């Protein structure tokens, strides 16, 4: 427990354009232990790119550089594709945004979850089957035997997302990156899915990076929050202290959200010119 699970220092991600390389992540640094970290920001703030670069999922012509990008002592940038395959899924896994596009439409749910497991471990058929049913049960799917035989188009969005979570958690990774895991879901289902993630993460002592644009949601499910804007961290704070955030961008985001007992006649709007230079 002495050395952090993940160390990131001066992470930069850039893509070429007609007018030279554009940096979408500009010198990000943070460390993560076995805790829950939230990364918040609007579209284009570089939060998803941060998540992807940790798994080395940024393809050419995109370019990732960092002074340090170390997961449990392994230098991620030094790893070959083959070595990365032993890390992805097994030790770090990622839940994507939309189950409609992230599940394989021609494989049953059970086969897909089994694939995630047997890629990394040699297990007997009966044991695999048992682990799948246990995992589906853990993500609160009521009749796992039936669901395991279904195809992705036969399940609802919320169930699809729970299946994705099952698939990502079955190899028992040490770090889970959840990139907008609930933005394609209904409000009533959102809370359920996040509760499941939260429960499993706490029970297994995993690290969690929750990437979202929803400040309220992140503050509810994380210990620590990084607020990103235009590729930089503008503010870092404990989740409970979000209300006392100092940076004008964070304050702007908080104020722009309508609340349930709204009394304001007009919502304050971010003055984008203020950050255009950064």
């Amino acid at each position, binding site marked *: 427990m002495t050395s952090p699970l993940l160390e990131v220092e001066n992470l930069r991600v850039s893509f070429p354009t007609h007018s030279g390389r554009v940096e979408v992540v500009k010198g990000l640094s943070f460390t993560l232990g076995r805790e829950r970290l939230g990364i918040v920001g609007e579209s284009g703030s570089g939060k998803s790119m941060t998540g992807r670069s940790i798994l080395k999922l940024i393809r050419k012509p995109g370019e990732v550089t960092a002074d340090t990008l170390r997961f449990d002592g392994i230098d991620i940038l030094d790893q070959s594709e083959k070595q990365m395959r032993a890390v992805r899924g097994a030790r770090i896994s990622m839940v994507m945004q939309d189950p409609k596009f992230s599940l394989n439409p021609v494989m049953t749910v059970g086969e897909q979850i089994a694939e995630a497991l047997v890629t990394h471990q040699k297990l007997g058929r009966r044991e695999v089957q048992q682990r799948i049913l246990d995992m589906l049960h853990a993500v609160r799917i009521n009749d796992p035997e039936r669901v395991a035989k279904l195809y992705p188009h036969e399940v609802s*969005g919320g169930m699809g997302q729970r299946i994705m979570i099952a698939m990502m958690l079955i190899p028992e990774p040490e770090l889970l990156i959840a990139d907008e895991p609930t933005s394609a879901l209904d409000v009533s289902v959102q809370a359920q899915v996040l509760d499941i993630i939260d429960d499993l993460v706490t029970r297994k002592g995993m690290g969690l990076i929750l990437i979202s*644009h*929803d400040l309220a949601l992140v503050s509810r499910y994380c210990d620590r929050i990084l607020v990103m804007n235009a590729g930089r961290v503008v503010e870092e704070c404990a989740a409970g202290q979000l209300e006392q955030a100092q940076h004008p961008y964070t304050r702007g985001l908080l104020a*722009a*959200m*309508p*609340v*349930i007992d709204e009394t*304001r006649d007009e919502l304050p709007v*971010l003055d984008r010119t203020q950050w255009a230079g950064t």
Partner: protein
Amino acid sequence: MTAIDLKNLDISYGDTKVVHGVDLAIAEGESFALVGESGSGKSTILRAIAGLAPDWTGSISVLGQKRSHHVDRAVSRQVQMVFQDPYGSLHPRKTIDATLSEPLAIHGIGNRGERVEAVLRQVGLDQRFRFRFPHQLSGGQRQRVAIARALMLEPKVLLLDEPTSALDVSVQAEILNLLKRLRREQNLTFLLVTHNLPVVSFLCDRLAVMRQGRIVEVADVAQLKAGRLSEPYSQELLAATAG
């Protein structure tokens, strides 16, 4: 006068009935919200009023006139719809000017150039956007264009299907402010579909909670703000929002 009056409305897609016996009266100038989870039939009601879901029984009246089952020009003049996804609801190969002029051409209204200029001003878009294509605009700007298109025929009623759920919070604030101002200036009636209760609290006067094609509760927005919704399902939705 009632802007929209639904009586014993059943709506089906093919053999599946998705809305069951809905009765609803929305007064002129009112802002009314339909909330509920996906598949509860809230968008389908909007589509039926707009003439996009023709397979219904019961009655739909708009500003006192009974609506027919097919697309009806007289109704289109009075009722317009704004869709959820500004990336999918604008024709990618038409300029903003062409998109905004089309309803005028269909209804044989002249003076198109000036009307387009005026509506762009109303929704807070600079005139330089007029001859651009949708892909050159941001999500928030596109949603402004979609609202402008709905306003071209100077309708009395706007049907808004999750108008801000595809947008960032700060852009959502801009669009909500815009809708509120337009409603005040033009005395519009809103029928809004959303699953975001804080948005209802900001923009609406009354709401109906829907579940599995039925309205379970109609409440005042004051009740929502005070957290005093009576049905257990409404309370569940409220709890999910508040955490």
